[in-house]
């Protein structure tokens, strides 16, 4: 074993300090009892209570969750369909063009996506509100889903689907009972990705949100412009907590999968003898 040198220790500390000090300060100040954000006046959970009594924040959070859930679900269905056609649909006119076009929104500046959606909604006379945010989020997140799902479709053995057809499945039955279960991890990953993207989005939402519906990122951003309030610190701490739990449980699940896989391999080896 190499010894842990001073240089390594310093590099590690500096790097992690850079990453986490801002968040740590935010978390600490969320427990500050003072109204002034930068002056420490003792420990208190006062602002958490305030936060849960603030109807505007709760409404915004509820809108955000509904938007994220509905838009990521629609995006997953559309994105999976698009991926299936582009990977499995065989050769057709303009296939290369279509596969290129599905990736384009990934690199499109959000401002442009937001602006063009806004113009579209105005021109067809759709009132801005929760529906328009859902439509906008579906639009930009479905291409992420389709990228994730198509990479899975490309990598799996086509003959498994053929075997299903060969054993008497109609194409739809084969998709439902063989293809879908096999690409399920990618479909779920795509859904989660779309969900987080939607939760996180500020730019596109601010173009397409109306007075009747505000998402949490918009609400936070606009209240910070009037000065950082300790409530925001509390809210951010809760969000950090949720994300941390999510990341830890995801890594636990994947770790368990690896252990299971090793056990299966052992089983296969023993079966041979």
């Amino acid at each position, binding site marked *: 074993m190499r010894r842990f040198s001073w240089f390594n220790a310093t590099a590690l500390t500096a790097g992690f300090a850079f990453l986490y000090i801002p968040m740590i300060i935010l978390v600490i100040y969320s427990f500050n009892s003072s109204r002034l954000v930068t002056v420490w006046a003792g420990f208190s959970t006062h602002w958490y209570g305030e936060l849960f009594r603030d109807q505007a924040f709760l409404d915004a959070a509820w809108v955000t969750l509904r938007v994220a859930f509905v838009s990521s679900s629609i995006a997953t269905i559309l994105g999976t369909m698009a991926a299936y056609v582009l990977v499995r649909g065989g050769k057709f006119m303009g296939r290369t063009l279509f596969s290129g076009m599905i990736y384009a929104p990934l690199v499109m500046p959000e401002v442009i996506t937001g602006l063009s959606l806004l113009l579209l909604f105005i021109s067809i006379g759709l009132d801005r509100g929760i529906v328009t945010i859902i439509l906008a989020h579906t639009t930009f997140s479905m291409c992420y889903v389709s990228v994730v799902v198509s990479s899975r479709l490309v990598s799996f053995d086509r003959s498994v689907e053929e075997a299903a057809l060969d054993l*008497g499945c109609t194409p739809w039955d084969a998709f439902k009972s063989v293809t879908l279960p096999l690409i399920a991890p990618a479909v779920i990953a795509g859904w989660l990705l779309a969900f987080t993207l939607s939760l996180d989005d500020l730019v596109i939402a601010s173009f397409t949100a109306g007075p009747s519906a505000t998402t949490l990122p918009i609400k936070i951003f606009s209240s910070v412009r009037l000065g950082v309030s300790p409530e925001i610190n509390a809210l951010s701490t809760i969000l950090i907590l949720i994300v941390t739990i999510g990341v830890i449980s995801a890594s636990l699940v994947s770790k368990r999968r690896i252990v299971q896989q090793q056990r299966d391999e052992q089983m296969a080896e023993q*079966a041979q003898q």
Partner: protein
Amino acid sequence: MKPAAKPAEFAPWLDPNETPLIRFDGVTKRFGDFTAIDDIDLKIYRKEFYALLGPSGCGKTTLMRMLAGFETPTEGTITIGGQDMKGIPPNRREVNMMFQSYALFPHLSVWDNIAFGLKRSKMSKEEIPERVKEMLRLTRLEKFAKRKPHQISGGQRQRVALARSLAKAPKLLLLDEPLGALDAKLRQQTQFELMDIQEKTGTTFVIVTHDQEEAMTVASRVAVMDNGKVIQVDTPARIYETPNSVYVADFIGDVNLITGNATLKDEGLAALSWAEGQPEIIGTAGEGLTAGNATFVIRPEKVAISAERPEGMNNVVQGRIHDIAYLGNISTYHVALPDGTLMKAQAANNRRLSRRSFTWEDEVWLSWTDTAGLVLAG
């Protein structure tokens, strides 16, 4: 005790009254500019174990995929059991396929994999477990019914794939390089198992393989393919002993090829002059041989090697041992003839090593009978 009557040899292709199960009539398949299958006519009979043999890219897999319904012929017709297969999708054909990659459903247990096709057939719910059990017994997988495909070994996966494709009792079973992923020893054992199962179930098997030994072992008839064409269809023994072309002779097994100029002689024989100052080689004339350019083909095991010049033989040449390949049960001697041609002769090692007589650089005589080799056109 009277010996049991020897069963009549299985050769429906010789019976003019027999109707074939599968017919290919002028089938051509093109992918863009590339012709994968070039105007093929085939007849495959019930209960046959039919091998499509050829190098990769010869069209054998395409031929099989057309039978399964994954590809449609560009021209010509394919009939199975008298029914034109045009426009009939894979799920409505009484044909099942065992895939090269096995294509097991990874999310289903061995039991569910085998039951998969049955659940989509007309079979009643009560009969399915019975049939699955039967298949598990046939392939000796009873112990592994609850396992997932990645929890069993390669050989067992191969048997699951076989059980799954046999479960629906298809008229025709297609096997695409079924033993490709197994190691040599397991492959041999499995070949015999396949033949056994084929006999027990009475299903018609069509197997695609590039392994000539495998084709020779399992098949009742072998179709040797090259470049989208069928070169020869015959029993393994006849393919080996009487190849109709240099290509087939060269593709199947080890062979000596000597090119020269042929003249036809009496009693179905032909003579080949092949080098100046050397006596002519006598061999059986191949089908349709005419005088002119020809190739003499002879299997190494039909060439005898001796220290003294053998008496009373027409085909005798002298040479020097260039190389010896010791294979345990047999040795192959590479003998350089005076004009530089290398000729292979095989001898069984029925004596212990110390008593064997030939070594490198020895002058030896090679000889073979008049009918041991073939003179083929081209």
